[in-house]
């Protein structure tokens, strides 16, 4: 990034947008006091190089550490902080962030920067090509995966097989925390989302397929960030349970209508805790 890129960051950090953002970046955060500030800095500097109006949304998930205070103290002009009164699960945090996003293109990215934000453009190219949903993938040809534990590799391979062959979801990596959506797709999918836990990604991709949305996978560089909160064995069991729940929800017709509303404009006040 050049000096002008740094100038763009200075402007973004001090001056609120007067126009609708082209991009929204949603970051769910639960007890991320050790990681959230460097992640915000890295994402903000990179996004400001794109030369388009954009916003960042930190969707707290009822953190009990100082995550919320740290983010508030940054006082970044185009950062919305959504505070949850209690821990509702990663899926609930992402949903609140996605339904608050105003951008034409909306990315959600994990708080640990395990998928570096520099790959934003790679996903956006597929949105430009007409896809509704673009999934960052650690399993697609060309992906670079560093430091992934053996157990996570085993579970990923097994679950991927089930997802592709039994549930017919044509995505080899449903769980990478780096996914991009058109505004319309995000609105339609996250309004219907019912799963609040780890498997919400799977539900979103299931719904995208159900609604005949165009979904692309893009290989990404991914680093198993230190301090990952993913417990592979426990998550795998929950994943299998949630697969059954998703199918049961569908059979019961629970995805036919919206299950959530977009929040009202008064909920933009970052100092006011949001109901979850």
């Amino acid at each position, binding site marked *: *990034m050049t000096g002008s*890129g*740094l100038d763009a*960051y200075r402007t973004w950090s001090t001056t609120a947008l007067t126009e609708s953002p082209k991009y929204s970046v949603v970051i769910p955060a639960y007890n991320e006091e*050790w*990681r959230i*500030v*460097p992640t*915000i*800095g*890295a994402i*903000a*500097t*990179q996004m400001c190089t794109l030369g388009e109006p954009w916003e960042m949304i930190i969707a707290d998930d009822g953190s009990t550490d100082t995550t919320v205070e740290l983010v508030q103290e*940054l006082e970044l002009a185009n950062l919305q902080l959504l505070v949850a009164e209690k821990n509702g699960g990663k899926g609930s945090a992402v949903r609140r962030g996605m339904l608050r996003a105003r951008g034409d293109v909306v990315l959600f990215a994990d708080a640990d*920067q395990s998928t*570096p934000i*520099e790959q934003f453009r790679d996903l956006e190219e597929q949105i430009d090509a007409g896809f509704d949903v673009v999934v960052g993938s650690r399993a697609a040809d060309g992906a670079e995966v560093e*430091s992934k534990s053996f157990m996570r590799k085993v579970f990923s391979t097994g679950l991927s097989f089930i997802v592709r062959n039994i549930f017919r979801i044509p995505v080899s990596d449903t769980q990478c925390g780096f996914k991009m959506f058109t505004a319309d797709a995000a609105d339609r999918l996250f309004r219907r989302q019912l799963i609040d836990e780890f498997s919400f990604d799977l539900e979103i991709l299931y719904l995208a397929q159900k609604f005949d949305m165009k979904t692309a996978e893009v290989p990404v560089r991914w*680093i198993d*960030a*230190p*301090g990952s909160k993913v417990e592979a064995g426990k998550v795998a069991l929950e994943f299998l349970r949630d697969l059954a729940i998703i199918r049961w929800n569908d059979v019961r017709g629970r995805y036919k209508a919206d299950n959530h509303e977009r929040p009202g404009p008064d909920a933009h006040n970052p100092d006011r805790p949001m109901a979850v």
Partner: protein
Amino acid sequence: MNITAATTDDGPLAFVLSGRFDAHEADGFRAAIDPALGATEPHIDIDLSDVEFIDSTALAELVRAMKRCRERSGDLRLLTPSNPVRVILELTRLDAAFTIV
């Protein structure tokens, strides 16, 4: 992350870092830099111009090394941090703690 060291006859010892500096790299960083921290009045430069991301553990490592240098009447300077690293230093307010050149 790659770490390369360079020495000059009269200047400070310089370490050039490149890539992603996170907790995975903390041990390697310590192994590279700790021998230099025991010198009398250690003056060390850390070139961060090619570091794309730095996490909290890495920041803590830099602070640790800087304090060790200053305890021995030396200093640790950060050279031309990349823009992401510069912004992260600012957001964490560590830009005021370091000598940044």
